[in-house]
């Protein structure tokens, strides 16, 4: 499934990943998908909790070698 946007956050440590993702999600349209790659395990949890709080859809996949891939679909709910 091709994503409309891509963020490479490998090597960034907390709290940088979610800050960048927040900015990006504010910019994209509702219904767009965003592919995120990160290798910081805590950031993955952080992102998942944030997505749940804001009703964005997401799926997580571990790509091996410690890199996680998160696909996020922005929902039409109230913006955060």
């Amino acid at each position, binding site marked *: 499934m091709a994503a409309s946007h891509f963020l490479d956050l490998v090597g960034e440590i*907390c*709290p*940088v990943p979610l800050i960048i993702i927040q900015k990006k999600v504010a910019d994209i349209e509702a219904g767009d998908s965003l592919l995120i790659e990160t290798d910081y395990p*805590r950031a993955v*949890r*952080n992102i998942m*909790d*944030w997505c749940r709080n804001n009703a964005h859809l997401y799926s997580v996949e571990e790509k091996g070698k410690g890199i996680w891939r998160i696909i996020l679909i922005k929902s039409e709910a109230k913006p955060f």
Partner: protein
Amino acid sequence: MKTLIKLRSASFLAFAERFILLITPAKMGIAAIGMLVLWAAFQSAWDNLVLWLLGALLGFCLHRARFCLAAAFRDAVLFRDISLSKAMIIIFFVSTIGFAFIQFRAYSLGLPIPGNIHPIGFHTVIGAFIFGVGMVLAGGCVCSMLARLGEGYVLALFILLGIMAGSLAGAYNVGWWEATIGSIKPVFFPDYLGWAGGITLQFLALGLLYLLCARIERKRL
């Protein structure tokens, strides 16, 4: 004859390659830990082994649950994410009960009360504030730094270096604070309210803390 030598060296190279690939960083880490434990056992330092074991339990839980005390504060501010803050309150709650047992036992035996009970002054307030700024800039608190070390982050060594330098500067400086501004003696809740009162106050405060977290989440702070 030539082909025989070629075959022998080729197989030796293959063997050496496989051997080197076996020595992954993970195995080096485990080997280092094993040697440390064996050395301690050799010195009959059983006390230290128990300390090490309890520390290992701490570290294991820290890493497994992806815990970070800095995130308990920082994520509440930046992202209104209080899941870690609530977990921190759980730690406070359970620890208070356990610590209170130990402290009361010492008190009833007439021994001095154990625990981290330190004097209070402007230095406490300023030190805590500076610590808060530092932990957000560094990306984690002191225990997270240990966890990053354990995961192999080279960056954690730099944080450690900074902490070492800062500790020395702080130890040098705290004398000035206490001499010029002074500090009041430690405040231990049961000293002022009795044991039942002190523990009640502690639980009330934890409850207030939880309400504060809930308000932060609902954006009404």
